[in-house]
């Protein structure tokens, strides 16, 4: 059978092909989107990129809450009664076609005045006339063309968020001042005396002074603040010598020009601050489309349907749910609060909460926990707790989520800076004492010169540029790290803890073993054809695993919900499904299995196993030499034997762990000195990811949500985890070498300073030279590491 791909979404058209306008579509949804576009002359959408679309989803009633004014108010950033502006997050935005179609929304609905896409953030900002077009209309329109916006409880905050751009301003100001000061100090570099320079010298100097004011008091302010904080908590961090250097530079220069003693060091001062801020700027690599700070709010819906006493259905804000409220949960909706099932067939997928992959059936009267996803039909439930008090959300009241991991971690730079500051200060005092006895007039000069030249600009730049560059290299290899200190912590870990479901297994369960009486070819044929008609996930998986067979027409086909399917062809009769359904007396086992009987004779069963990620054993074998390895799973022990075979023998396997068990496990081992790297995927790992020294979330699709963590690793790069850790360790080595390099510069500078020969021009040459050579060294070195990494 030749594979036809859908013109709209690019998926394979497996069972049905819908032709329209000589184009093939995989489903009516895709065809409808094409129709909408072609009616409105927007088919350019398909010229920019081939098959860029997504299948529009069925959303009956899902967005009813958008007709509530108080909810709309929270979601819009501007609303004057006539015009509303809303920014919507659309995960599907991925190519130029997306930008084009979303910015032409006004062609589809004339009441939308403008729409602007931010590709990096995957958002579209829509301005529309609210008298004739509501937010709900906009959302429904977006959904009808396959761009369903993602609206979660996280969006539920008033006002626009302030973007912090202060670092750009600071870099701008420092750069601006640096350039101007350099121009103004040039005349004095080349001409020491003479009528011309004598006349204009004061003007140049005071202009330089004026330019350096905003640099010291605005751009360099953070260094003073940080140094003060460090000192008050009795820490000599790297900002202490920097702040000292800046202060001494500024005061000495001002004194020099005020008493006409010299030209001052304004060039070095502005240059220093400019380079330091550049380092800070470079270290910041933000992945605007990723968020590392997510909690349950990004998973939860904003509103849910409430059934009041009269039986009317009204949308209600999730925060307003009270004990005793009756709620309607539709298929694929998330249960927002703990409650009791009233009626309906509940099949709850708790994979978010527990990591347990199997959906659970619930009877009316059973307790339902927040975070579960209903997967079959509509149910009614009664809330017994509010959102914040629910079992899952309580996890977030744990202290771990409010502590900042960086606080308890001393960086390499700060460790060095402690000794460095002490050494520099002692050199300064010794040299000053020496000069006090030989030539007291020079003593103050030497003291300040030592503090100026020893200002650890190069040391302060080593780590930001090394980590900043590595952050970018990791990003290209689909390992998205939150910030530089994560790389440093990653280099220090000694224990690695893995979650099982979704982390070391891939989301598709694609292996099944058959045991029982061998099936005859005619039976296999019947089995395959029976499965073909069923939409149950297990049937679909099994169907994909079995060999291709001819298509036959079944005489009879019947699906028994929750039990299995039966079918007959000619004289053969087959039953596929649960053990009791096919007549097997086998007791329930931990693994998922599909049982088969033909003509009322039990044949055997297909047992499904998790399929593990590629290269799993290889990864574990390379990791086992250096790290303690643990598997911490929320799932049952069904996979124990399988994992034992796959993984190195010393790997600890621990099953049936609840979210807070995982957190406690890590906490306990940390008190024993373990530096823990946690690798997980779901909300159930959120506590563990926050507690660990480094928490990495594995994600099949980085645009989809992952819990709060320090880094996000694309699932396809899972087997390269060891290389990433190795690269982080190399980064530490690079930084140590650049420290050595900057010490050499410092020793040269200190020679000039201690002997009392430090002229402004020497400082002005030495400072940029050391900084730039450090930047070049770290950049080249990290690129070599990066090249090795992308080869492996």
């Amino acid at each position, binding site marked *: 059978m030749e594979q036809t791909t859908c013109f709209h979404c690019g998926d394979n058209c497996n069972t049905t092909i819908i032709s329209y306008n000589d184009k093939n579509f995989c489903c009516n949804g895709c065809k409808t989107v094409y129709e909408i576009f072609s009616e409105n002359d927007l088919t350019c959408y398909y010229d920019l990129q081939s098959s860029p679309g997504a299948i529009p989803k069925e959303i009956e009633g899902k967005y009813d809450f958008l007709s509530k004014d108080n909810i709309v108010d929270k979601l819009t950033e501007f609303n004057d009664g006539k015009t509303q502006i809303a920014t919507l997050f659309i995960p599907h935005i991925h190519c130029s076609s997306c930008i084009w179609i979303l910015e032409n929304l006004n062609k589809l609905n004339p009441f939308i005045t403008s729409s602007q896409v931010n*590709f990096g953030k995957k958002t579209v900002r829509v301005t529309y006339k609210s008298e004739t077009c509501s937010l709900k209309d906009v959302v429904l329109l977006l959904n009808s063309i396959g761009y369903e916006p993602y609206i979660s409880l996280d969006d539920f905050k008033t006002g626009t968020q302030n973007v912090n751009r202060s670092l750009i301003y600071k870099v701008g100001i420092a750069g601006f001042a640096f350039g101007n000061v350099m121009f103004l100090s040039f005349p004095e570099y080349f001409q020491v005396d003479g009528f011309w320079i004598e006349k204009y010298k004061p003007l140049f100097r005071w202009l330089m002074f004026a330019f350096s004011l905003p640099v010291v008091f605005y751009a360099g302010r953070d260094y003073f603040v940080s140094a003060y904080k460090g000192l008050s908590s009795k820490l000599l961090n790297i900002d202490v010598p920097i702040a000292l250097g800046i202060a001494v530079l500024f005061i000495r220069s001002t004194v020099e020009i005020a008493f006409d003693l010299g030209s001052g060091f304004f060039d070095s001062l502005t240059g220093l601050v400019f380079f330091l801020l550049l380092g800070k700027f470079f270290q910041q690599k933000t992945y605007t489309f990723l968020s590392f700070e997510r909690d349950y709010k990004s998973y939860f819906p904003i509103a849910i349907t409430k059934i009041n006493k009269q039986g009317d259905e009204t949308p209600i804000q999730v925060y307003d749910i009270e004990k005793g409220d009756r709620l309607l949960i539709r298929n694929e909706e998330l249960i927002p609060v703990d409650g009791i099932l009233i009626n309906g067939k509940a099949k709850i997928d708790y994979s978010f909460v527990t990591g347990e992959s199997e959906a659970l059936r619930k009877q009316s009267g059973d307790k339902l926990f927040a975070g579960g996803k209903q997967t079959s039909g509509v149910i009614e439930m009664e809330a017994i707790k509010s959102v914040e008090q629910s079992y899952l959300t309580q996890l977030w009241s744990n202290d771990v989520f409010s502590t900042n991991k960086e606080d308890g971690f001393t960086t390499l730079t700060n460790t060095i800076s402690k000794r460095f500051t002490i050494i520099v200060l002692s050199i300064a005092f010794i040299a000053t004492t020496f000069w006090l006895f030989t030539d007291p007039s020079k003593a103050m000069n030497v003291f300040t010169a030592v503090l100026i030249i020893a200002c650890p600009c190069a040391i302060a730049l080593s780590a930001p540029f090394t980590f900043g560059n590595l952050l970018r290299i990791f990003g290209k290899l689909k390992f998205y790290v939150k910030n530089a200190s994560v790389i440093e912590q990653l280099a220090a870990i000694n224990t690695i803890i893995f979650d099982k479901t979704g982390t070391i297994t891939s989301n598709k369960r694609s292996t099944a073993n058959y045991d029982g009486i061998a099936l005859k070819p005619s039976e296999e044929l019947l089995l395959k054809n029976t499965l073909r008609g069923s939409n149950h996930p297990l049937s679909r998986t099994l169907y994909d695993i079995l060999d291709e067979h001819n298509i036959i027409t079944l005489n009879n086909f019947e699906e028994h919900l929750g039990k299995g399917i039966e079918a007959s062809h000619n004289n053969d009769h087959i039953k596929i499904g649960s053990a009791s359904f096919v007549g097997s007396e086998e007791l329930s086992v931990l693994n998922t299995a599909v049982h088969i009987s033909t003509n009322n004779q039990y044949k055997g069963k297909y047992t499904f196993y998790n399929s593990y990620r590629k290269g799993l054993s290889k990864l574990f074998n390379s990791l086992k030499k250096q790290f303690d390895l643990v598997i911490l799973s929320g799932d049952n022990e069904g996979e124990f034997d399988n994992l034992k075979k796959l993984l190195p023998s010393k790997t600890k396997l621990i099953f049936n762990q609840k979210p807070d068990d995982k957190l406690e496990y890590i906490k306990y081992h940390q008190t024993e000195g373990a530096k823990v790297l946690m690798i997980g995927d779901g909300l159930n790992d959120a506590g563990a990811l926050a507690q660990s020294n480094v928490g990495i979330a594995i994600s099949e699709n980085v645009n989809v949500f992952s819990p709060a963590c320090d880094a996000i690793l694309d699932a396809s790069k899972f087997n390269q985890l060891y290389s990433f850790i190795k690269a982080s360790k190399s980064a530490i080595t690079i930084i140590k070498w650049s420290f050595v390099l900057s010490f050499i510069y410092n020793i040269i500078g200190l020679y000039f300073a201690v002997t009392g020969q430090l002229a402004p021009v020497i400082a002005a040459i030495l400072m940029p030279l050391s900084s730039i050579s450090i930047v070049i060294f770290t950049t080249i070195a990290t690129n070599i590491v990066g090249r090795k990494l992308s080869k492996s």
Partner: protein
Amino acid sequence: MSVIYILLSISIIVAILFFIAFIAAVKSGQYDDSYTPSVRMLFEDELVKEQPKPSVKSKKD
């Protein structure tokens, strides 16, 4: 007055004007999204190709 004062003040005024322009650009959010504009500027051609049709359909539910 020596010409150097005039030159100096001109150069500083020009520098400050550019600086203000930079601050204004940052403030207006020009640096927030550095990717989309580069794609958007290529779209102009496609838009011209379309003829405004009288039957602009409004999708309302």
